[in-house]
């Protein structure tokens, strides 16, 4: 398969997943505001931190407020990580590989994009519309995922798409946990009050994890929440689960046996996954959850670099410098 197409598939997976996560963060937040006395800045600032765009936001919009954050994260064409930009790039990528993906994938992604584009050109939408929009983005992303799984052969193309989708999901789960955990934790006075439950539930919902968490652990406990999102083996949005699945796709590309690696990307992903497999949440929290998550994101970026050099720009006459690879990660 052409390296360019592998790159496009990987990023299509990431962009659509990114749009879905941003929609989920916003949707949960819109809901949360109705139940808590917190307002303005306190509620919306974490969102731009979660997506990693706080600096760009402050430069262009100033103090975070509901409308500006929503505009920035949903529809701002100049924010490369907005829902609109993500869908636009995913669609452009898909357009360059129509002969690789299935027609169903193209048609689904195309109408997904047209829905988002239609909303982006209707500013000043009310609360009801925004909530519906968030729900639609999530559902259309699930639909795209499902259409892809059901219509694209699970060969090389699908594996690159799948790796992109899972890397993005692991990254977003890590970020939402990192940002929210510390906002929630110090509020000792709230412990045991309805707020406590509402806020922790909101965090779980931001990763669609609320119901699955309760099935497994019942009561809300901060440590258990962290454990669930980082280490749960079965929950599809936990960091560990994402890496287990991503590793299977990565191995399928070369056919290398478990416990061995054929290239830098496999080595990096294998290490990172093993790290999660043998970790325990007590140790992680003792050493610092924030530090742990920070390091995780850095290692995920390093995996992206390795994918780039191994698959997306192989044996080019001029070897890519590390800067080029890092820049690519910000896409």
């Amino acid at each position, binding site marked *: *398969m*052409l390296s360019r197409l592998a790159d496009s598939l990987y990023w299509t997976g990431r962009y659509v997943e990114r749009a879905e996560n941003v929609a989920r963060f916003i949707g949960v937040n819109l809901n949360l505001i109705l139940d808590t006395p917190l307002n303005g800045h306190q509620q919306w600032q974490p969102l731009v931190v979660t997506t990693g765009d706080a600096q760009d936001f402050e430069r262009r919009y100033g103090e975070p407020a509901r409308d500006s954050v929503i505009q920035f994260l949903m529809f701002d064409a100049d924010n490369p990580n907005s829902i609109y930009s993500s869908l636009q790039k995913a669609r*452009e990528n898909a357009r*360059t590989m129509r002969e690789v993906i299935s027609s169903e994938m193209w048609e689904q992604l195309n109408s997904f994009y047209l829905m988002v584009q239609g909303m982006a050109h209707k500013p000043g939408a009310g609360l009801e519309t925004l909530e519906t929009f968030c729900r639609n983005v999530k559902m259309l992303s699930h639909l795209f995922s499902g259409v892809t799984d059901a219509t694209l052969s699970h060969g090389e193309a699908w594996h690159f798409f799948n790796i992109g989708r899972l890397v993005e999901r692991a990254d977003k789960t890590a970020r939402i946990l990192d940002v929210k955990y510390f906002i929630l934790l110090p509020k000792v006075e709230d412990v045991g009050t309805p707020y406590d439950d509402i806020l922790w539930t909101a965090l779980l919902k931001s990763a669609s994890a609320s119901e699955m968490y309760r099935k497994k652990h019942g009561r809300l406990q901060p440590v258990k929440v962290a454990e669930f999102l980082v280490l749960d083996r079965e929950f599809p949005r936990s960091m560990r689960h994402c890496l287990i699945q991503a590793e299977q796709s990565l191995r399928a590309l070369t056919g290398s046996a478990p416990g061995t690696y054929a290239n830098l990307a496999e080595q990096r992903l294998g290490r990172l996954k093993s790290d999660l497999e043998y970790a325990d949440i007590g140790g992680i929290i003792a050493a610092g959850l924030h530090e742990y998550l920070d390091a995780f994101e850095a290692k995920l970026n390093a995996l992206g670099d390795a994918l780039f050099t191994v698959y997306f720009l192989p044996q080019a006459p001029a070897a890519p410098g590390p800067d080029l690879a890092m820049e690519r990660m910000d896409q």
Partner: protein
Amino acid sequence: MNFENYQTDSYYDELFEIGGRPRTSAAPLIDRIKSMPAGDLTRQQKAAESEFLQMGITFTVYGNKDGTEKIFPFDIIPRIVPNPEWKVIERGLIQRIQALNLFIDDVYHDQLILSDRAVPKEVVASSFGFHEQCVGLNPGKRIWIHITGTDLVRDKDGRYYVLEDNLRCPSGVSYVLENRNVLKRTLPQAFQDMRVKPVDDYPHRLLDTLRYVAPVGADPPKVVVLTPGPYNSAYFEHAFLARQLGAQLVEGRDLAVVDGTVKMRTTKGLERVDVIYRRVDDDFIDPNAFRPDSTLGVPGLMEVYRKGRVTLANALGTGIADDKGIYAYVPHMIKYYLQQDPILPNVPTYVCWEDAQRRHVLDNLDKLVVKAVNQAGGYGMLVGPHSSKAEQERFASMIEANPRDYIAQPTLALSRVPVIVEDHFEGRHVDLRPYILYGREVYVMPGGLTRVALKKGSLVVNSSQGGGSKDTWVLDEPPMPGKKETN
């Protein structure tokens, strides 16, 4: 729907004789259409259009940042070409392609035709299409023009003329194949009864052609389609053909010259490429050899090509014969290389660098069509009968200043075909672009793209200016005897 009020006016109509009687070849089709329930045809037409949009059979509208794509408008009534008429076209095109190929090969080698003065040396030397870089090139099997899309027009007298040769990267063949798919579903009975010649084997024949000219030793040769990318207006076609050929669709950045061969970057490393069906113009194909600012090409490709280690289709340098000034001499080429009279005539052409002809052109600017030699698609043109005095004066001074840049032709009354206009039929002007492949032999696709000027009275068939397309039915034999006569 019926043709009761249909007017051929004073034009040659492809389906009707003067007086409104269907031509014998078209009678079964007209019968079939008349017998269809009212509204059926328009419904079918709408269904076809929405299918084109769904399938993404579109061209890109330049300058639209949302990446809007439009369908190429399509009219469901086919154009009919009777078999005897087609045989002449086919022979004429084969003759013309052979002569043009010999001419291009000659121009980049010994230039015998120039020393024998059958074509003036200075006209070639001054052509925008002559590339110094291509002198001495030896494309495989000495074939330069593997794929041609010749534009034919028919005048009031019913004669076919060659309007343009299009020897570089002619586009549109994907519409022919898709239009045919739709028509086979819409008018299956008429299609079968009339014995329409198939066009569906075109991709297969194209692949054979490309493999035939592969570098020696490449077995099986690796064929790719090179596109400028998704922003090119013909991107759909590039992707379509790649799919049909089973070839990889690549952009310039997917290819690199490594160790004297062309390689493509894949997830499994670098893979050798033998034949490139390129839809990128000469000027952009290699920044080292042609335009240094091109980002669409492959640096170093020209050197590999010169050594015969990769095949490009079409060859580099074929644009020389797309110069309208060179076009004027194609009849001379046919006589010179083949010792034959041209079967298909050129449109009579006045070249402005010959004094007597220039004087004639300047005296008749209000009647002639003046064209810049290096432009196509209806640009850089003066249509005399529709022009103002000021425009004529502007062209007069441009011709005086740069006579080599202009030719002139009489204004043709292009033939017409009925199209659906709301609930009735009206005649619209058409041209015809058959596709020709030059491999083991010269193959002319039976049919081609009939482009139609959908605007009433318009003579411009280009898609950028309100043109659409129709399917072209070349009949295998005259309608079988015993069929009901229409009257």
